[in-house]
Protein backbone atom coordinates (compact mmCIF):
# COMPACT_ATOMS: atom_id res chain seq x y z
CA UNK A 1 0.00 0.00 0.00
CA UNK A 2 2.99 2.32 -0.19
CA UNK A 3 2.03 3.96 -3.43
CA UNK A 4 3.22 7.45 -4.21
CA UNK A 5 0.48 7.94 -6.77
CA UNK A 6 -2.42 10.10 -5.65
CA UNK A 7 -6.04 9.64 -6.68
CA UNK A 8 -6.93 13.03 -8.24
CA UNK A 9 -10.64 12.55 -7.62
CA UNK A 10 -9.97 12.30 -3.88
CA UNK A 11 -7.25 14.99 -3.88
CA UNK A 12 -9.88 17.43 -5.13
CA UNK A 13 -11.74 16.95 -1.83
CA UNK A 14 -8.73 18.24 0.09
CA UNK A 15 -8.43 21.16 -2.35
CA UNK A 16 -12.14 21.94 -1.91
CA UNK A 17 -11.78 22.33 1.84
CA UNK A 18 -9.04 24.93 1.35
CA UNK A 19 -11.11 26.78 -1.22
CA UNK A 20 -13.94 26.83 1.26
CA UNK A 21 -11.83 28.38 4.00
CA UNK A 22 -10.32 30.84 1.52
CA UNK A 23 -13.79 31.98 0.45
CA UNK A 24 -14.33 33.13 4.06
CA UNK A 25 -11.06 34.97 4.52
CA UNK A 26 -9.92 36.02 1.06
CA UNK A 27 -10.16 39.76 1.73
CA UNK A 28 -7.89 39.49 4.73
CA UNK A 29 -5.49 37.16 3.00
CA UNK A 30 -5.48 38.59 -0.47
CA UNK A 31 -4.83 42.23 0.18
CA UNK A 32 -1.47 42.27 2.00
CA UNK A 33 0.23 39.65 -0.17
CA UNK A 34 -0.86 41.57 -3.14
CA UNK A 35 0.32 44.96 -1.97
CA UNK A 36 3.78 43.53 -1.54
CA UNK A 37 4.74 43.24 -5.22
CA UNK A 38 2.94 46.51 -5.96
CA UNK A 39 5.24 48.28 -3.51
CA UNK A 40 8.24 46.67 -5.20
CA UNK A 41 6.97 47.74 -8.58
CA UNK A 42 6.48 51.32 -7.41
CA UNK A 43 9.75 51.53 -5.47
CA UNK A 44 12.01 49.72 -7.90
CA UNK A 45 10.30 50.23 -11.21
CA UNK A 46 9.06 53.76 -10.93
CA UNK A 47 11.53 54.92 -8.28
CA UNK A 48 14.89 53.36 -9.05
CA UNK A 49 13.83 52.85 -12.65
CA UNK A 50 13.78 56.56 -13.36
CA UNK A 51 17.59 56.57 -12.86
CA UNK A 52 18.06 53.76 -15.34
CA UNK A 53 17.44 54.25 -19.01
CA UNK A 54 16.71 50.65 -19.94
CA UNK A 55 17.72 47.04 -19.46
CA UNK A 56 18.33 44.97 -22.55
CA UNK A 57 16.57 47.65 -24.53
CA UNK A 58 13.36 47.72 -22.48
CA UNK A 59 12.23 50.22 -19.86
CA UNK A 60 13.22 49.13 -16.37
CA UNK A 61 9.68 48.89 -14.98
CA UNK A 62 8.77 46.83 -18.00
CA UNK A 63 11.72 44.57 -17.27
CA UNK A 64 10.82 43.89 -13.63
CA UNK A 65 6.98 43.85 -13.92
CA UNK A 66 6.69 40.30 -15.31
CA UNK A 67 9.39 39.09 -12.93
CA UNK A 68 7.37 40.35 -9.99
CA UNK A 69 4.39 38.34 -11.23
CA UNK A 70 6.58 35.26 -10.89
CA UNK A 71 7.73 36.24 -7.41
CA UNK A 72 4.13 36.86 -6.31
CA UNK A 73 3.47 33.24 -7.24
CA UNK A 74 6.48 32.06 -5.26
CA UNK A 75 5.50 33.97 -2.13
CA UNK A 76 1.85 32.90 -2.29
CA UNK A 77 2.64 29.20 -2.70
CA UNK A 78 5.35 29.35 -0.05
CA UNK A 79 3.23 31.00 2.63
CA UNK A 80 0.46 28.54 1.97
CA UNK A 81 2.61 25.44 2.24
CA UNK A 82 4.78 26.61 5.13
CA UNK A 83 2.95 28.51 7.88
CA UNK A 84 -0.59 27.63 6.84
CA UNK A 85 0.07 23.92 6.45
CA UNK A 86 2.15 23.74 9.61
CA UNK A 87 -0.78 25.23 11.48
CA UNK A 88 -3.22 22.72 9.98
CA UNK A 89 -0.94 19.76 10.57
CA UNK A 90 0.62 20.46 13.97
CA UNK A 91 -1.57 22.96 15.81
CA UNK A 92 -4.96 21.87 14.55
CA UNK A 93 -3.97 18.18 13.95
CA UNK A 94 -6.34 18.43 11.04
CA UNK A 95 -4.55 15.86 8.90
CA UNK A 96 -5.16 13.16 11.50
CA UNK A 97 -8.86 13.54 10.95
CA UNK A 98 -8.56 13.90 7.17
CA UNK A 99 -6.49 10.71 6.97
CA UNK A 100 -9.14 8.87 8.99
CA UNK A 101 -11.46 9.31 5.99
CA UNK A 102 -10.88 7.68 2.58
CA UNK A 103 -8.20 10.31 1.90
CA UNK A 104 -4.69 8.80 1.82
CA UNK A 105 -1.35 10.59 2.18
CA UNK A 106 -0.61 11.03 -1.57
CA UNK A 107 -4.14 12.45 -2.08
CA UNK A 108 -3.61 14.84 0.80
CA UNK A 109 -0.26 16.02 -0.59
CA UNK A 110 -1.64 16.49 -4.09
CA UNK A 111 -4.71 18.33 -2.80
CA UNK A 112 -2.55 20.78 -0.86
CA UNK A 113 -0.24 21.31 -3.84
CA UNK A 114 -3.28 21.91 -6.06
CA UNK A 115 -4.49 24.47 -3.58
CA UNK A 116 -1.10 26.22 -3.46
CA UNK A 117 -1.23 26.34 -7.26
CA UNK A 118 -4.76 27.77 -7.18
CA UNK A 119 -3.82 30.43 -4.69
CA UNK A 120 -0.76 31.34 -6.72
CA UNK A 121 -2.91 31.54 -9.80
CA UNK A 122 -5.25 33.99 -8.07
CA UNK A 123 -2.46 36.22 -6.76
CA UNK A 124 -0.31 36.04 -9.86
CA UNK A 125 -3.16 36.71 -12.26
CA UNK A 126 -4.37 39.66 -10.24
CA UNK A 127 -0.86 41.07 -10.32
CA UNK A 128 -0.67 40.41 -14.04
CA UNK A 129 -3.78 42.54 -14.46
CA UNK A 130 -2.20 45.35 -12.47
CA UNK A 131 1.04 45.20 -14.43
CA UNK A 132 -1.03 45.32 -17.61
CA UNK A 133 -2.95 48.36 -16.35
CA UNK A 134 0.40 50.09 -15.81
CA UNK A 135 1.03 49.48 -19.50
CA UNK A 136 3.97 47.14 -18.92
CA UNK A 137 2.78 44.24 -21.05
CA UNK A 138 3.35 44.36 -24.80
CA UNK A 139 2.61 40.95 -26.18
CA UNK A 140 -0.88 39.42 -26.49
CA UNK A 141 0.84 36.14 -25.57
CA UNK A 142 0.64 37.42 -22.00
CA UNK A 143 -2.87 35.96 -22.00
CA UNK A 144 -1.17 32.57 -21.77
CA UNK A 145 0.66 33.46 -18.56
CA UNK A 146 -1.93 32.20 -15.98
CA UNK A 147 -1.54 28.44 -16.60
CA UNK A 148 2.21 28.83 -16.12
CA UNK A 149 1.56 30.66 -12.86
CA UNK A 150 -0.38 27.63 -11.67
CA UNK A 151 2.55 25.42 -12.69
CA UNK A 152 4.99 27.67 -10.82
CA UNK A 153 2.66 27.64 -7.82
CA UNK A 154 2.53 23.84 -7.90
CA UNK A 155 6.33 23.76 -7.99
CA UNK A 156 6.82 26.14 -5.04
CA UNK A 157 3.92 24.49 -3.22
CA UNK A 158 5.61 21.11 -3.53
CA UNK A 159 8.93 22.53 -2.32
CA UNK A 160 7.25 24.23 0.64
CA UNK A 161 5.32 21.09 1.51
CA UNK A 162 8.50 19.02 1.26
CA UNK A 163 10.16 21.33 3.80
CA UNK A 164 7.13 21.55 6.10
CA UNK A 165 6.59 17.81 6.19
CA UNK A 166 10.25 17.23 7.07
CA UNK A 167 10.81 19.74 9.88
CA UNK A 168 10.25 19.23 13.58
CA UNK A 169 10.00 22.86 14.63
CA UNK A 170 8.37 25.95 13.22
CA UNK A 171 11.57 27.90 13.97
CA UNK A 172 13.25 26.29 10.99
CA UNK A 173 11.19 28.37 8.57
CA UNK A 174 13.59 31.25 9.03
CA UNK A 175 16.18 29.07 7.27
CA UNK A 176 13.79 28.30 4.44
CA UNK A 177 13.01 31.93 3.82
CA UNK A 178 16.43 33.43 4.49
CA UNK A 179 18.49 30.82 2.71
CA UNK A 180 16.12 29.80 -0.07
CA UNK A 181 13.15 32.04 -0.85
CA UNK A 182 14.77 35.45 -0.37
CA UNK A 183 17.93 34.59 -2.37
CA UNK A 184 15.71 33.30 -5.17
CA UNK A 185 13.79 36.55 -5.10
CA UNK A 186 17.01 38.56 -5.41
CA UNK A 187 19.07 36.36 -7.73
CA UNK A 188 16.62 34.95 -10.27
CA UNK A 189 16.83 37.76 -12.77
CA UNK A 190 13.80 39.74 -11.61
CA UNK A 191 15.65 42.98 -10.94
CA UNK A 192 18.58 42.71 -13.35
CA UNK A 193 19.78 40.34 -16.06
CA UNK A 194 22.04 37.65 -14.69
CA UNK A 195 24.58 37.85 -17.51
CA UNK A 196 26.33 40.80 -15.86
CA UNK A 197 27.14 38.64 -12.85
CA UNK A 198 29.92 36.04 -12.74
CA UNK A 199 29.21 32.99 -14.87
CA UNK A 200 28.60 30.69 -11.92
CA UNK A 201 25.63 32.79 -10.75
CA UNK A 202 23.78 32.00 -13.96
CA UNK A 203 24.65 28.35 -13.56
CA UNK A 204 23.27 28.29 -10.02
CA UNK A 205 20.20 30.23 -11.11
CA UNK A 206 19.46 27.63 -13.78
CA UNK A 207 18.98 25.08 -11.01
CA UNK A 208 16.42 27.21 -9.18
CA UNK A 209 12.72 27.26 -10.07
CA UNK A 210 12.08 30.99 -9.85
CA UNK A 211 14.58 31.71 -12.62
CA UNK A 212 12.59 29.53 -15.02
CA UNK A 213 9.26 31.05 -14.01
CA UNK A 214 10.65 34.57 -14.51
CA UNK A 215 11.90 33.60 -17.95
CA UNK A 216 8.41 32.33 -18.81
CA UNK A 217 6.48 35.37 -17.56
CA UNK A 218 8.91 37.90 -19.05
CA UNK A 219 9.04 36.03 -22.30
CA UNK A 220 5.27 35.87 -22.67
CA UNK A 221 4.81 39.49 -21.60
CA UNK A 222 7.35 40.88 -24.04
CA UNK A 223 8.42 38.75 -26.98
CA UNK A 224 7.97 35.01 -26.55
CA UNK A 225 9.86 32.17 -28.13
CA UNK A 226 7.57 29.15 -27.82
CA UNK A 227 10.36 26.57 -27.64
CA UNK A 228 12.15 28.46 -24.86
CA UNK A 229 8.94 28.87 -22.84
CA UNK A 230 8.15 25.18 -23.26
CA UNK A 231 11.66 24.25 -22.12
CA UNK A 232 11.36 26.26 -18.92
CA UNK A 233 7.89 24.86 -18.26
CA UNK A 234 9.14 21.33 -18.73
CA UNK A 235 11.95 22.00 -16.25
CA UNK A 236 9.39 23.16 -13.66
CA UNK A 237 7.07 20.21 -14.28
CA UNK A 238 9.86 17.65 -13.93
CA UNK A 239 11.16 19.21 -10.72
CA UNK A 240 7.64 19.32 -9.26
CA UNK A 241 6.99 15.66 -10.04
CA UNK A 242 10.32 14.55 -8.57
CA UNK A 243 10.09 16.67 -5.42
CA UNK A 244 6.50 15.47 -4.85
CA UNK A 245 7.88 12.15 -3.60
CA UNK A 246 9.46 13.91 -0.60
CA UNK A 247 6.29 15.18 1.12
CA UNK A 248 4.48 11.90 0.45
CA UNK A 249 7.29 9.97 2.10
CA UNK A 250 7.74 12.45 4.97
CA UNK A 251 4.03 12.88 5.70
CA UNK A 252 3.61 9.12 5.79
CA UNK A 253 6.38 8.79 8.34
CA UNK A 254 4.99 11.67 10.30
CA UNK A 255 1.27 10.91 10.29
CA UNK A 256 0.59 7.23 9.60
CA UNK A 257 3.80 5.45 10.62
Amino acid sequence: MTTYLPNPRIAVRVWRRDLWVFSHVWMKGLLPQFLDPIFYLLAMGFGLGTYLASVEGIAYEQFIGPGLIASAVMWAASFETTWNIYFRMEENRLYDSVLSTPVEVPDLALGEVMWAATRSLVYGTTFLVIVTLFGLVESPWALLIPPFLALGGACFGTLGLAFTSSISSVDLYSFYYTLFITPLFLFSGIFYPLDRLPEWVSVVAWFTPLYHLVEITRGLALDPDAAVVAGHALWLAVLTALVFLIPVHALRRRLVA
Partner: protein
Amino acid sequence: MTAAVRARGLVKHYGGLTAVAGVDFDVQAGECFGFLGPNGAGKTTTMKMIYGLAAIEGGDLTVLGLDARTRRREVKSRIGVVPQEQNLDRELSVRENLEVQANYHGLRRDGRIDELLEFSLLARRGDAKTQELSGGMRRRLLIARALVNRPELVVLDEPTTGLDPQARLAVWDLLERLRSEGVTLIVTTHYMEEAHRICDRLVIMDEGRIVAQGTPGELLERYDEENLEGVFLQVAGHALRE
Protein backbone atom coordinates in the same frame (compact mmCIF):
# COMPACT_ATOMS: atom_id res chain seq x y z
CA MET B 1 -22.62 -13.40 14.68
CA THR B 2 -19.96 -12.02 12.38
CA ALA B 3 -16.87 -10.28 13.70
CA ALA B 4 -16.66 -6.53 13.06
CA VAL B 5 -12.98 -6.59 13.98
CA ARG B 6 -10.69 -9.58 14.20
CA ALA B 7 -7.11 -9.11 15.43
CA ARG B 8 -4.48 -11.84 15.62
CA GLY B 9 -1.00 -11.27 16.97
CA LEU B 10 -1.01 -7.50 16.42
CA VAL B 11 2.42 -6.00 17.02
CA LYS B 12 3.65 -2.43 16.90
CA HIS B 13 6.91 -0.77 17.99
CA TYR B 14 7.78 2.91 18.06
CA GLY B 15 11.53 3.11 17.94
CA GLY B 16 12.74 0.79 20.70
CA LEU B 17 9.42 0.99 22.49
CA THR B 18 6.90 -1.83 22.29
CA ALA B 19 3.45 -0.24 22.01
CA VAL B 20 1.48 -3.38 21.18
CA ALA B 21 3.05 -6.75 21.95
CA GLY B 22 0.89 -9.28 20.11
CA VAL B 23 -2.79 -8.95 20.93
CA ASP B 24 -5.74 -11.08 19.82
CA PHE B 25 -9.35 -9.99 20.09
CA ASP B 26 -12.69 -10.23 18.29
CA VAL B 27 -15.30 -7.51 18.30
CA GLN B 28 -18.76 -8.80 17.37
CA ALA B 29 -21.03 -6.78 15.13
CA GLY B 30 -23.46 -4.64 17.10
CA GLU B 31 -21.72 -4.78 20.46
CA CYS B 32 -19.96 -2.13 22.48
CA PHE B 33 -16.43 -3.34 23.08
CA GLY B 34 -14.16 -1.63 25.60
CA PHE B 35 -10.40 -1.24 25.91
CA LEU B 36 -9.28 -0.43 29.41
CA GLY B 37 -5.80 0.22 30.63
CA PRO B 38 -3.42 2.75 32.09
CA ASN B 39 -1.80 5.39 29.90
CA GLY B 40 0.75 3.85 27.58
CA ALA B 41 -0.90 0.42 27.66
CA GLY B 42 -1.27 0.37 23.86
CA LYS B 43 -4.97 1.21 23.57
CA THR B 44 -4.60 4.22 21.29
CA THR B 45 -2.07 2.46 19.07
CA THR B 46 -4.45 -0.47 18.67
CA MET B 47 -7.23 1.97 17.73
CA LYS B 48 -4.97 3.73 15.24
CA MET B 49 -4.19 0.46 13.53
CA ILE B 50 -7.93 -0.11 13.14
CA TYR B 51 -8.57 3.27 11.55
CA GLY B 52 -5.44 3.48 9.48
CA LEU B 53 -3.35 6.06 11.32
CA ALA B 54 -0.72 3.54 12.40
CA ALA B 55 0.88 1.02 10.07
CA ILE B 56 0.32 -2.60 11.09
CA GLU B 57 3.75 -4.00 11.81
CA GLY B 58 3.00 -7.60 12.67
CA GLY B 59 -0.04 -9.85 12.85
CA ASP B 60 -3.37 -9.74 11.05
CA LEU B 61 -6.21 -7.29 11.34
CA THR B 62 -9.58 -7.63 9.65
CA VAL B 63 -12.07 -4.78 9.90
CA LEU B 64 -15.62 -5.34 8.60
CA GLY B 65 -14.32 -8.38 6.77
CA LEU B 66 -11.60 -6.37 4.99
CA ASP B 67 -7.84 -6.71 5.42
CA ALA B 68 -6.92 -3.48 7.22
CA ARG B 69 -3.46 -3.48 5.63
CA THR B 70 -4.37 -3.68 1.99
CA ARG B 71 -7.88 -2.20 1.89
CA ARG B 72 -7.43 0.77 4.15
CA ARG B 73 -9.34 3.24 2.01
CA GLU B 74 -12.37 0.98 1.92
CA VAL B 75 -12.18 0.34 5.65
CA LYS B 76 -12.02 4.06 6.36
CA SER B 77 -15.05 4.76 4.20
CA ARG B 78 -17.14 2.42 6.34
CA ILE B 79 -16.04 3.34 9.85
CA GLY B 80 -16.23 6.46 12.02
CA VAL B 81 -13.43 7.78 14.21
CA VAL B 82 -13.66 9.89 17.36
CA PRO B 83 -10.04 10.72 18.21
CA GLN B 84 -8.62 11.62 21.58
CA GLU B 85 -7.39 14.95 20.26
CA GLN B 86 -9.73 17.80 19.44
CA ASN B 87 -8.93 17.98 15.76
CA LEU B 88 -12.02 19.77 14.56
CA ASP B 89 -11.38 22.19 11.72
CA ARG B 90 -10.90 25.48 13.53
CA GLU B 91 -11.23 27.49 10.35
CA LEU B 92 -14.77 26.26 9.72
CA SER B 93 -18.07 26.51 11.59
CA VAL B 94 -19.84 23.63 13.36
CA ARG B 95 -22.04 22.87 10.37
CA GLU B 96 -19.17 23.24 7.93
CA ASN B 97 -17.15 20.73 9.94
CA LEU B 98 -19.82 18.16 9.15
CA GLU B 99 -20.14 19.29 5.54
CA VAL B 100 -16.40 19.06 4.95
CA GLN B 101 -16.42 15.56 6.41
CA ALA B 102 -19.12 14.57 3.91
CA ASN B 103 -16.86 16.10 1.26
CA TYR B 104 -13.87 13.96 2.32
CA HIS B 105 -16.09 10.92 2.03
CA GLY B 106 -17.29 12.03 -1.38
CA LEU B 107 -20.92 12.17 -0.21
CA ARG B 108 -23.55 14.52 -1.53
CA ARG B 109 -25.22 16.89 0.86
CA ASP B 110 -28.52 15.56 2.10
CA GLY B 111 -30.51 15.79 5.31
CA ARG B 112 -27.79 13.89 7.16
CA ILE B 113 -26.04 17.02 8.44
CA ASP B 114 -29.22 18.46 9.99
CA GLU B 115 -30.04 15.08 11.45
CA LEU B 116 -26.60 14.90 13.10
CA LEU B 117 -26.78 18.45 14.42
CA GLU B 118 -30.05 17.45 16.08
CA PHE B 119 -28.63 14.18 17.31
CA SER B 120 -25.65 15.87 18.94
CA LEU B 121 -27.81 18.67 20.39
CA LEU B 122 -25.93 21.28 18.36
CA ALA B 123 -28.70 22.37 16.01
CA ARG B 124 -28.70 25.88 17.40
CA ARG B 125 -24.92 26.21 17.26
CA GLY B 126 -24.48 25.37 13.59
CA ASP B 127 -22.90 28.69 12.69
CA ALA B 128 -20.61 28.87 15.72
CA LYS B 129 -16.87 28.50 15.35
CA THR B 130 -15.60 25.35 17.03
CA GLN B 131 -13.45 27.40 19.40
CA GLU B 132 -16.59 28.96 20.84
CA LEU B 133 -17.95 25.59 21.97
CA SER B 134 -17.61 24.07 25.42
CA GLY B 135 -15.57 20.89 25.85
CA GLY B 136 -18.70 18.76 25.96
CA MET B 137 -20.10 20.32 22.80
CA ARG B 138 -16.86 19.78 20.95
CA ARG B 139 -16.85 16.14 21.95
CA ARG B 140 -20.42 15.77 20.72
CA LEU B 141 -19.43 17.44 17.45
CA LEU B 142 -16.51 15.01 17.10
CA ILE B 143 -19.00 12.17 17.51
CA ALA B 144 -21.41 13.72 15.01
CA ARG B 145 -18.52 14.13 12.55
CA ALA B 146 -17.68 10.46 12.89
CA LEU B 147 -21.24 9.56 11.88
CA VAL B 148 -21.48 11.58 8.67
CA ASN B 149 -20.77 8.54 6.48
CA ARG B 150 -23.30 6.35 8.36
CA PRO B 151 -20.55 4.03 9.64
CA GLU B 152 -21.13 0.43 10.62
CA LEU B 153 -18.37 0.68 13.21
CA VAL B 154 -17.32 3.68 15.32
CA VAL B 155 -14.00 3.81 17.15
CA LEU B 156 -13.94 6.21 20.10
CA ASP B 157 -10.66 6.94 21.84
CA GLU B 158 -11.40 8.17 25.37
CA PRO B 159 -14.64 9.89 24.42
CA THR B 160 -15.32 11.29 27.88
CA THR B 161 -11.85 12.14 29.19
CA GLY B 162 -11.79 15.63 30.61
CA LEU B 163 -15.55 16.14 30.56
CA ASP B 164 -17.69 17.16 33.52
CA PRO B 165 -20.27 14.60 34.75
CA GLN B 166 -23.14 16.19 32.87
CA ALA B 167 -21.26 16.30 29.56
CA ARG B 168 -20.20 12.70 30.14
CA LEU B 169 -23.81 11.64 30.60
CA ALA B 170 -24.69 13.35 27.32
CA VAL B 171 -21.94 11.39 25.52
CA TRP B 172 -23.07 8.10 27.09
CA ASP B 173 -26.57 8.86 25.93
CA LEU B 174 -25.36 9.34 22.35
CA LEU B 175 -23.42 6.08 22.50
CA GLU B 176 -26.42 4.18 23.82
CA ARG B 177 -28.57 5.52 21.01
CA LEU B 178 -25.97 4.44 18.45
CA ARG B 179 -25.81 0.97 19.89
CA SER B 180 -29.57 0.68 19.81
CA GLU B 181 -29.32 1.44 16.08
CA GLY B 182 -27.01 -1.54 15.68
CA VAL B 183 -23.76 0.39 15.22
CA THR B 184 -20.71 -1.47 16.53
CA LEU B 185 -18.74 0.59 19.04
CA ILE B 186 -15.16 0.28 20.19
CA VAL B 187 -14.36 2.52 23.14
CA THR B 188 -11.15 3.12 25.05
CA THR B 189 -11.37 4.53 28.53
CA HIS B 190 -9.67 4.55 31.86
CA TYR B 191 -12.90 5.07 33.73
CA MET B 192 -14.00 1.72 35.16
CA GLU B 193 -17.47 2.99 35.85
CA GLU B 194 -17.82 4.03 32.22
CA ALA B 195 -16.66 0.64 30.99
CA HIS B 196 -19.12 -1.12 33.28
CA ARG B 197 -21.97 1.05 32.17
CA ILE B 198 -21.59 1.03 28.39
CA CYS B 199 -19.50 -2.00 27.39
CA ASP B 200 -20.93 -5.43 26.58
CA ARG B 201 -17.46 -6.91 26.66
CA LEU B 202 -14.06 -5.50 27.36
CA VAL B 203 -10.37 -6.21 27.50
CA ILE B 204 -7.84 -4.80 29.94
CA MET B 205 -4.52 -3.89 28.36
CA ASP B 206 -1.23 -3.36 30.10
CA GLU B 207 2.22 -2.84 28.61
CA GLY B 208 1.01 -3.71 25.14
CA ARG B 209 -0.70 -6.97 26.12
CA ILE B 210 -4.25 -8.01 26.89
CA VAL B 211 -4.20 -9.14 30.51
CA ALA B 212 -7.90 -9.90 30.99
CA GLN B 213 -11.04 -10.09 28.91
CA GLY B 214 -14.74 -10.88 29.23
CA THR B 215 -18.07 -9.25 30.03
CA PRO B 216 -18.02 -6.92 33.05
CA GLY B 217 -19.97 -9.58 35.00
CA GLU B 218 -17.54 -12.37 34.09
CA LEU B 219 -14.56 -10.30 35.13
CA LEU B 220 -16.07 -9.44 38.50
CA GLU B 221 -16.79 -13.11 39.15
CA ARG B 222 -13.42 -14.37 37.92
CA TYR B 223 -11.41 -11.97 40.05
CA ASP B 224 -13.89 -12.01 42.92
CA GLU B 225 -14.30 -8.25 43.04
CA GLU B 226 -17.26 -5.96 43.58
CA ASN B 227 -16.31 -3.50 40.88
CA LEU B 228 -14.07 -3.28 37.81
CA GLU B 229 -11.69 -1.01 39.69
CA GLY B 230 -10.70 -3.99 41.80
CA VAL B 231 -10.23 -6.22 38.76
CA PHE B 232 -8.13 -3.54 37.14
CA LEU B 233 -5.89 -3.20 40.20
CA GLN B 234 -5.40 -6.97 40.30
CA VAL B 235 -4.38 -7.33 36.66
CA ALA B 236 -2.74 -3.99 35.87
CA GLY B 237 -2.13 -2.42 39.23
CA HIS B 238 1.62 -2.87 39.28
CA ALA B 239 2.02 0.68 37.99
CA LEU B 240 0.31 1.93 41.13
CA ARG B 241 2.16 -0.40 43.46
CA GLU B 242 5.59 0.26 42.03
